[in-house]
């Protein structure tokens, strides 16, 4: 019988799964390619990679892990960043920036016109490398 993975591992698996979508041909790496048709979805996928890494970290460190909305989660992250958790504090502004950008690209019809390639590369690098590294995942 296979035992179910612990919740933090499950979130890491989900982050990696989302990350793998960014290696599909319709989502070329924005740090090395300039011809991107789905900039908006690249941002959104990057955000959901970041979110699952953060959730994994919250589980690993016995923080609260149940949230009713992104706003609820963001408020909580702000609180623990200011109270006790330096790692969260180090990534929080970039995470919130990615959250805002992904929300903007999803709901604003002309959004992708505003995204530069270097911005996309920043999002990509943060979600896939900086964030898990900083959180020690």
């Amino acid at each position, binding site marked *: 019988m296979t035992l179910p993975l612990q919740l933090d591992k499950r979130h890491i698996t989900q982050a990696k799964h989302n990350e793998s979508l960014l290696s599909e041909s319709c989502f070329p790496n924005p740090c090395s390619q300039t011809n991107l048709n789905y900039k908006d979805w690249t941002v959104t996928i990057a955000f959901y990679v970041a979110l699952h890494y953060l959730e994994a970290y919250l589980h690993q*460190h*016995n*923080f*609260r892990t*149940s949230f*009713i909305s992104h*706003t*609820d989660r*963001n*408020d*909580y992250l*702000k*609180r*623990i*960043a*200011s*109270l*006790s*958790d330096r790692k969260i504090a180090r990534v*929080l*502004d*970039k995470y*919130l*920036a*990615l959250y*805002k*950008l992904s*929300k*903007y690209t999803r709901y*604003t019809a*002309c*959004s992708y016109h*505003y*995204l*530069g390639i270097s*911005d996309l590369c*920043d*999002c990509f690098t943060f979600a896939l490398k900086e964030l898990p590294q900083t959180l020690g995942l």
Partner: protein
Amino acid sequence: MERDKQKTLIVKNGRWIWPDEELESDLNIRFPPRWRVAVSENETDFWEDFLKSRLASKSCKPTSFVTYDDFSKMEHRMLKIEEEIGRIVPQPPMKEIDQIVEDVASELRPIEEAKKAYYSQDKNVLHFSVMVSGLSTSLLERISKMEISISRKYPTFSIEIEPATCDEDVLKGSRLILVKE
């Protein structure tokens, strides 16, 4: 113990208080009909400080505290409440909101890309839409830092500062709080 299983606030490490109307009045906060705030060890200080400061300012004491053991007995019933987690809805004095709006506007003023800003409120969430001339990650990080800093200053509020690029993106009924040429 049986007063109302759907109205329980965990305060610290299993210590909890009943959020009755008297307490709402004492703390100057309004509780949603069904709610619970679970507090992990890492954030207990925040809630304790928050409650203490509210209580101190009202010169009163919590109406009921019970021990962790009591909480354990309640755990089965609490699990049902888990599915309906709510949140504290502050009942903020207008003066405090005006101060937050002023803080946000003054922080936005020096940001070149920020051309206009709107404010709206949805329950306990204070929402700011910032009309920007162009989007970049550096601008968004700057806005996020500002949001974190203002949220720290007013910890009982949910504050969101988000970018917009055209007036259509701004919620109807929002209040214009900043205009730059």
